[in-house]
């Protein structure tokens, strides 16, 4: 998995996730979010258009981040999920607890 900071748009950090978010790589997301949150960032948009695969270890990392950000009154949006990843999200009910936008633009115009 690769995590890349794309840009800052207003108050939000936009990052891209690519590759696989699984039991071997889920921790990288937790670590990177930790670094950004320690640095004072609170609003995040994650472009998932290049994220090919997610397992429960990935969902776990995203849920932990979402809870931490919520407790800071920040925001976390996911955008542009591939069909298979989106499917795992809705089956797990994550689409009801984390804002998911069809495109990156939708998230930015929020």
């Amino acid at each position, binding site marked *: 998995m690769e995590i890349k900071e794309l840009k800052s748009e207003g108050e939000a950090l936009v990052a891209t996730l690519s590759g696989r978010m699984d*039991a071997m790589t889920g921790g990288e997301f937790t670590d990177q979010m930790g670094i950004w949150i320690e640095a004072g960032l609170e609003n995040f948009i994650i472009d998932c258009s290049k994220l090919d695969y997610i397992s429960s270890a990935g969902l776990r990392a995203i849920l*932990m981040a979402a809870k931490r950000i919520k407790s800071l009154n920040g925001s976390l949006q996911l955008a542009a999920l591939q069909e298979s990843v989106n499917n795992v999200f809705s089956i797990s009910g994550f689409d009801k607890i984390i804002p998911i936008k069809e495109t990156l633009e939708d998230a930015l115009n929020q």
Partner: protein
Amino acid sequence: MPSTNSEQIANDYLELAATLKNLPLFMAFVTDRARQSGFSSKRIAEVELVIEEALVNIIDYAYPDREGWLRLNLKTGAEGGLKLEIKDRGVAFNPLEIEDPDLRAELMERPVGGLGVFLIKKFSDNLFWKQQGDENCLTIIFKKRHA
């Protein structure tokens, strides 16, 4: 020895230490065969998810205090599907007894974790568990579906 008759039917077999380092090989063992059996790449991604969840649980929980082992056995199922047996000699554990998570809980009420077994159930076509001596044997049936 895994089989004793010399004219055997397709019966693939992999046994390795139950560690995260071996996960890619376990996954390739199943996905290579799924690809050879003509599973679509969409269905292969679902198969991968199910195997990852089942194996990571064994790696994480089955052997709390010692190095453990894990065996996969793949057979051809009905209509070109796959029948995967996962065996370990760890803690006796029947995933079918785990309750589904509450999908309507609010963000701050959602427990972290507890989705692995649920995803196994959702993306497999059939799931059996039995104890054989000191072994857990989890059988997962995958149909081709979107072939």
